[in-house]
Structure formats: structure tokens, C-alpha cells
């Protein structure tokens, strides 16, 4: 037995494995396959103040060891969430974190304020890195001044655990890591998707209705891992690593590079039990290598 418990700010997780936003619905969709209580936490779908229909079909394209998506934050808005979804989430025996999105700083603030009142939501993940929306999203996450402004504004109204999700589509990820820390975020999660594109050569059309979309999956793992490594050295707050994690070894790479926790995203589409398999694999590794606690290997690569 090895101790898998970790802390993200004041939030205690029973293990470092979290399901990533936009890839696990509201959790319920995966309950046929696994017991969500075996996970550290789940981060539910990107949520906005108002309901959104998202982008037009087609919204996805398969690529080499990855996929592009252009979902564009389709969700029913906070009112519906509070009334119809939250009551169910409140019964889970795992931490439920909400991924927060907006067009404007006011949107982010208002949504965070609303979510802070929900007792069973101990943390939010501020998504300033969605590449699939015209307004907001990645625009905040690729401009240092805007990033600072939105994080600071949300921090003012949200006193529970604040995680900021960073975009990899930047020259210097550590700049955004530091800004998050300075503005009082308790953790950063990275990476969101890389902005990519694909063309159907036969029809001579882009494969996505939006032309560009977000690249996820093992293809991006080397880039994500590098950014996690850089960020973990740049800030003292915990880093949550993700991008292409398909199994426990992948997750261990992120942890060794400095991630306190990891998220499983696209992998759940292919193997819905990936999250719990990763938990088991990490534990097995620690036992085999005689580490009594996950903390022994966090950031072991310098």
C-alpha cells in the first residue's frame, strides 16, 4: 500500500487522478463502467451563464494519435445546471469541480459567484483556454494582462479552491503560471488543447465546421509534459498535468515532471475506465518501487 492522497490548496483528494472537463460529461455517463468514488475528482463539462448550442457539425476529426474537437462549450447554462444537474452531482462520493467559462470578465465573475453558493462544489476550474469559442476562452489565456484581470476578478468573489486552466498556445507557459499564482489561484491545470486543423483532401474542405479546433490525445503529450515541467519549476502552487494520458505510465511521467495531480481526458472516449486504471497503475508502481507515498515522486525529474 502506498499513500496516494494529495492536496490542491485546501482540497484533499484521495488520489491524484481527475477526469478532465468536456470528456466525462457530468460523470453519470460513465457510471456504468466504474465507480466514480475511486477517482480523486471529476471536472464536469464547461459551463457558462447562459445556455449554449456550441458549434455546428462536424465538430471532430481524428488525427494521428489524437483528435481535433470544436464542441464550443455546448451546455444548458447555470440555471439549468443548478436546478437539474447539481442535485445529482451532490450525491457523488467524489469531488465535483465545475469548469467555468465566459465571454467577458463579468460572465466569469457572475458564474463563479453562483457556483460558490453550491456546497457540493468545492472548487472551480477557470477555463481561460478554450480554443473553440469566438469570444472569451483562449483570448484570456493567451494575453497576460487579460489573464491577470480575469483571475483576479474571480478570486475576489470565489473563496473556495480556484484552479486556473492554462492554454498551451503560448510562447511562455511559465508567464501564465506565475500570473495565476500571483493572483491567488490555488492550482493551475495544463494543458488545454493545442489549436490545430485538418483538411479533407478529397472534398477540399476543412474537417471542422470552425476550420480550427482543439488537438488532444497522445499526440500532444510531449508538449504538455514539457509545459508541466516548466511550470512546476516556476511556481509553488500545485500543478495538475494533462494532455494525452492514456495509462498509468503516462500519468507517472507527468507526476515525475512535477504534477501533483493529473487529469484524464480523451482517453475516456476509447476506454471509459482509464481513470480508475490509472489510479491502480500508479499505486502498483509505487509499491513495486517501494515508495510509501506519491509525494516521493512528484517532480523527481529536475
Amino acid at each position, binding site marked *: 500500500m502506498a499513500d496516494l492522497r494529495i492536496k490542491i490548496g485546501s482540497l484533499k483528494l484521495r488520489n491524484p487522478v481527475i477526469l478532465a472537463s468536456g470528456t466525462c*460529461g457530468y460523470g453519470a455517463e460513465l457510471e456504468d463502467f466504474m465507480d466514480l468514488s475511486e477517482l480523486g475528482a471529476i471536472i464536469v463539462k464547461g459551463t457558462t451563464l447562459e445556455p449554449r448550442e456550441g458549434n455546428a*457539425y462536424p465538430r471532430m476529426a481524428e488525427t494521428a494519435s*489524437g483528435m481535433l474537437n470544436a*464542441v464550443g462549450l455546448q451546455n444548458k447554462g447555470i440555471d439549468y445546471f443548478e436546478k437539474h444537474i447539481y442535485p445529482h452531482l451532490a450525491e457523488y462520493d467524489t469531488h465535483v469541480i465545475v469548469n467555468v467559462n465566459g465571454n467577458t470578465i463579468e460572465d466569469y465573475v457572475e458564474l463563479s459567484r453562483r457556483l460558490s453558493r453550491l456546497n457540493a462544489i468545492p472548487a472551480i476550474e477557470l477555463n481561460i483556454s478554450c480554443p473553440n469559442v469566438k469570444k472569451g476562452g483562449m483570448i484570456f489565456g493567451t494575453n497576460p494582462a487579460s489573464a491577470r484581470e480575469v483571475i483576479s476578478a474571480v478570486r475576489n468573489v470565489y473563496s473556495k479552491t480556484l484552479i486556473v486552466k492554462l492554454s498551451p498556445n503560448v510562447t511562455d507557459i511559465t508567464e501564465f503560471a506565475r500570473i495565476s499564482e500571483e493572483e491567488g489561484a490555488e492550482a493551475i491545470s495544463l494543458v488545454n488543447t493545442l489549436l490545430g486543423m485538418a483538411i479533407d483532401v478529397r472534398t477540399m474542405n476543412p474537417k471542422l465546421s470552425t476550420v480550427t479546433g482543439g488537438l488532444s490525445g497522445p499526440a500532444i503529450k510531449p508538449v504538455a509534459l514539457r509545459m508541466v515541467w516548466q511550470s512546476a519549476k516556476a511556481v509553488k502552487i500545485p500543478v495538475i498535468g494533462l494532455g494525452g494520458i492514456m495509462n498509468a505510465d503516462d500519468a507517472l511521467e507527468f507526476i515525475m515532471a512535477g504534477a501533483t495531480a493529473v487529469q484524464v481526458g480523451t482517453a475516456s472516449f*476509447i476506454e*471509459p475506465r482509464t481513470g480508475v486504471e490509472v489510479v491502480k497503475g500508479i499505486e502498483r508502481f509505487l509499491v513495486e518501487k517501494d515508495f510509501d507515498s506519491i509525494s516521493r515522486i512528484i517532480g523527481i525529474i529536475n
Partner: protein
Amino acid sequence: MKKRVEDLTVTDNRRLTDSFFVLKVHSAEGLPEINPGQFVQALVTESPATFLRRPLSVHDVDHSTNTVSLLVQVAGPGTERLSRLIPGENLNLIYPLGNAFTLPSAGEKVLLTGGGCGMAPLLYLGRKIHESGIKPHFALGFRNRSRVLENEEFKKLGQVWLSTEDGSEGHKGFVTDIPAFRDEHWDKVYCCGPEPMMKAVAAVCRKREIFCEVSLENLMACGMGICLCCIVPTTSGNLCSCTDGPVFNIKDLKWQTSG
């Protein structure tokens, strides 16, 4: 109908034509209840070009042998790899996925129409309808005689009309040109096939005010309702074709009527 991830064993892989094959897979665990119209997400291992699973309709189910049949068309690397599976090999499936066709009520007269790999779900649907005591009718469309698929299987269940685009077998033209389709009374029409065919069938049914369900083949990443990539615009907004579908009543779809 709990969904599961399971390694099934290939028991048969039979070529029908150049590009079509029927794959039979056996569940050692025992099959769950599966409804006509549902689909599986097949994992294609040993293909460097295949990252995501491939959605395939349930073509037939034999509960006595715990066997599922899939009717597959080679369309690219994933289906190509599946076409080379040999008995004894594993096929990992997530299933059963999606909603199902609305079965007819006693005494109703039903037409099952489709073409190409879209015919896949119609056999199992026809079988279930047949078991319920109704004789299904089939209107199946093909490019030409050499493309005609599984005709005999369908004939065991009910009347079959064929159409071919070149008239080399059955009626010349599309399924919508089959006289019985246009002229006879139908309580329910079920359709699965290429989008232009489904739209043409839907147009006829709309005009004649016939209950009509179609099974869509939108691009899917997950098949379980967690990616929101497979959406279809409906009168109640964007719905997931993998969980709210793949079967939709045409009255809910925002299709421009054509044909």
C-alpha cells in the same frame, strides 16, 4: 441495459462482396439485452491509423449462442483492419449503445428501407418485428446487382423489394421509386442508409404523413454521450446522436426536406 466494455471472440468473418463483410462475435459473459437500432463501439487494435473506436450498428443478435453480427463496409483503415479479423481473435466492444427503433404496435403495417451498410440495423429490427407477430416489408436499394447484400436473410422475415440504380436487379432507381413504397399504406417506415436516401425517404413520409424513424451515422468520438461531437440539430436543440439517437423521428430533425 448497462453498458459494458468487453472482449468478444470472433467466431466468423464472411465476405459478402468486395467491400462488405459480416463479422460474428461471441460474448463469453453472455449478451445483455440489445434493442434494434443500437450500436457498438469497436476498438481497432493493430492499426496505426486508428485512434478512436469505430461505431457499428448491431446487424443481428442470437441470444441462444450469445453472438452479435456486424455488417461492415470497408471504408478506411479501421474497417479494413476489422475485415481481416480471424475466428479466435478478440474484438473489444463498448455496447450496447444508443436508443432504439420504436417497435410497431400489433396490426401495423411496416416498411424497413435502407441501402449499403445502412442496411445493417434493419435485419435485427426486422427479426424483432417478426417475433412480435408482424410481417415486416423491406425496400432495399443498391448501386447494381453485384452490390446486393443479404437479400436471402431478409426474405426469411418478410417481403423484399429491391431497387438498383442501373436496373440490373429489381426496380430501376432508388428505394423511393419502388411502387409499393409510394402507393401502399404504411403505418411505420424505418430507414437507414446514405444521407440522400434517408432525406428522400423522409420527404415521402412527411408528405404522406407516415411515422418515420431514421438511424443517423454522424461522426462519433465516444459513443457514450461524453464528447458532444456527434450532435444533430433538432427541434429541441442540438442532441447527441449517440445517446439521444442514433434513431430519430423525422419530425424532430431539422432537415431541409428535399427529393
